[in-house]
């Protein structure tokens, strides 16, 4: 096989590639720089059925609908209506004109298939960007990272969730992936920002790109596609390869930009999906954390209220004499038994004086005085 197989004989040495074959079969079309196999007649470009089809339908732009709407009731909105119809007609005319031009092979780098792919890419990208404004504040908190920012991110479908966890500033639905995280919350706003930024730093960076910029990438693909094929294919034309190989490369080069655009659009759709999923998980975490903080706050308030009451040592800090019941001063040395700093005292070595005990103590003192 080696001496007579792929290497020695066959396509390479004297096949279609060198002289004739696909590439020199002539004809018109833009892809026939040097006679591309694409322009061999029955493709999209030169198809007579196509051209006649579009030509026959070209009377739409001629004036079939020309005067429609002008003889309206003459009210104010009638003008706008007429303008709208004219705009639609103009856009329709240009659309048909472009499609016909592409079908006839008059637009370099385009045929109906890759035009369709580009159109589908734009549609998919727009679908992926429909809910973009709901998470657009992520850019501000990621790139500017403000401490206090009046913004929010959310994912809300038409039906508001009936059951949800959290507060009105930050909540998550139980059933579907709906959530709401506010950054303007006075208490937890900065914390929410911090947690969302942490999540963004932990997950792949590509998920947090500015998706509207992908529209420019797509437009770039459309523009580059005009001359991409004509620029790149000559490189492969001068190479030695089989005709099948060249045919594959020819297809790859021709559809490269459109497939690229499709990948960008589909990528954007996937990014949106994953972003929502990750942010939902983040929201669940934030809600749980804020709930724990609320609970902690209640406990801290209780502790502070308890600690706000005065405490007294069980043993005199001065002489060590045992001081029980409602005594505020040491009976032996007369020093104060009051705990000045809670941090310094051990909880087991101190006591509170209950209201009842204090009353009894004061009653006892009064009795002693009376005696």
């Amino acid at each position, binding site marked *: 096989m080696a001496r007579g197989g792929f290497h020695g004989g066959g396509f390479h040495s004297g096949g279609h590639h060198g002289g004739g074959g696909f590439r020199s079969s002539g004809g018109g079309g833009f892809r026939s720089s040097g006679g591309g196999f694409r322009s061999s007649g029955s493709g999209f470009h030169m198809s007579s059925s196509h051209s006649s089809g579009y030509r026959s339908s070209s009377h739409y732009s001629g004036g079939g609908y020309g005067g429609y709407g002008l003889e309206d009731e003459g009210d104010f909105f009638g003008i706008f209506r007429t303008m709208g119809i004219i705009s639609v007609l103009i856009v329709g005319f240009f659309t048909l004109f472009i499609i016909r031009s592409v079908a006839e092979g008059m637009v370099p780098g385009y045929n109906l298939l890759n035009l369709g792919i580009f159109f589908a890419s734009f549609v998919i990208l727009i679908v992926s960007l429909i809910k973009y404004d709901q998470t657009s504040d992520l850019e501000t908190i990621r790139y500017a990272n403000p401490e206090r920012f009046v913004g929010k991110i959310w994912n809300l479908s038409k039906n508001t969730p009936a059951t949800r966890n959290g507060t009105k500033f930050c909540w998550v639905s139980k059933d579907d992936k709906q959530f709401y995280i506010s950054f303007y919350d006075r208490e937890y706003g900065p914390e929410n920002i911090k947690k969302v930024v942490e999540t963004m730093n932990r997950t792949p960076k590509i998920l947090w790109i500015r998706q509207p910029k992908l529209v420019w990438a797509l437009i770039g693909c459309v523009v580059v596609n005009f001359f991409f094929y004509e620029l790149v294919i000559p490189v492969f034309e001068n*190479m030695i*390869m089989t005709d099948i190989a060249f045919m594959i490369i020819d297809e790859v080069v021709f559809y490269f930009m459109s497939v690229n655009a499709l990948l960008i659009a589909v990528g954007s759709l996937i990014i949106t999906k994953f972003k929502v999923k*990750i942010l939902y998980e983040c929201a669940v975490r934030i809600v749980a954390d804020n709930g724990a903080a609320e609970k*902690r706050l209640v406990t801290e308030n209780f502790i502070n209220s308890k600690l706000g009451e005065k405490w007294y040592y069980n043993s005199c800090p001065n002489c060590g004499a045992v001081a029980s019941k409602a005594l505020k001063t040491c009976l032996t040395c007369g020093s104060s038994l009051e705990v000045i700093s809670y941090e310094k005292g051990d909880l087991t070595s101190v006591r509170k004086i209950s209201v009842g005990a204090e009353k009894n103590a004061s009653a006892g003192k009064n009795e002693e005085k009376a005696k």
Partner: protein
Amino acid sequence: MKLQKFFKYAFPIGVAGIAINLLLFITNWYYELVVPLIEDTFIEGALFHFLDNLIYYTPVIFLLLFVAYIIAGHIYMKKVHITKEVQATEKLVEKNEKIQKELDEKAEFLKHKYYTNCPNCGSVREENANVCSFCGASLIIKEKKKQ
């Protein structure tokens, strides 16, 4: 997470690898370059046939390996990210629970009043003790219910 570095850029590297190998296979460049090396030797017969095929299909083998690399990388990195998120959640929950537990203990202590001496045996109460260390009786002063 030992393989994280290996799989971190699996997608771009994989795509580049696939493109290069596809080009090498389609254009036959690799074969043209390598096969003369064995043509000049005395290898013949079945072994030559095998090597010839191997060289011809090497770009395809590498292409498939790169495809596997992308898929494995995707699965592994997804697992890594899920693990990271779960760990972050667990860490946060653990931290909250720890703080809450300390506060609850403090609050629980402050809720009650304690005897300084055991009401049962009279021994002195030890530090932070809820029960007597000698007889085991509770040192909490139970408040009488208001009638």
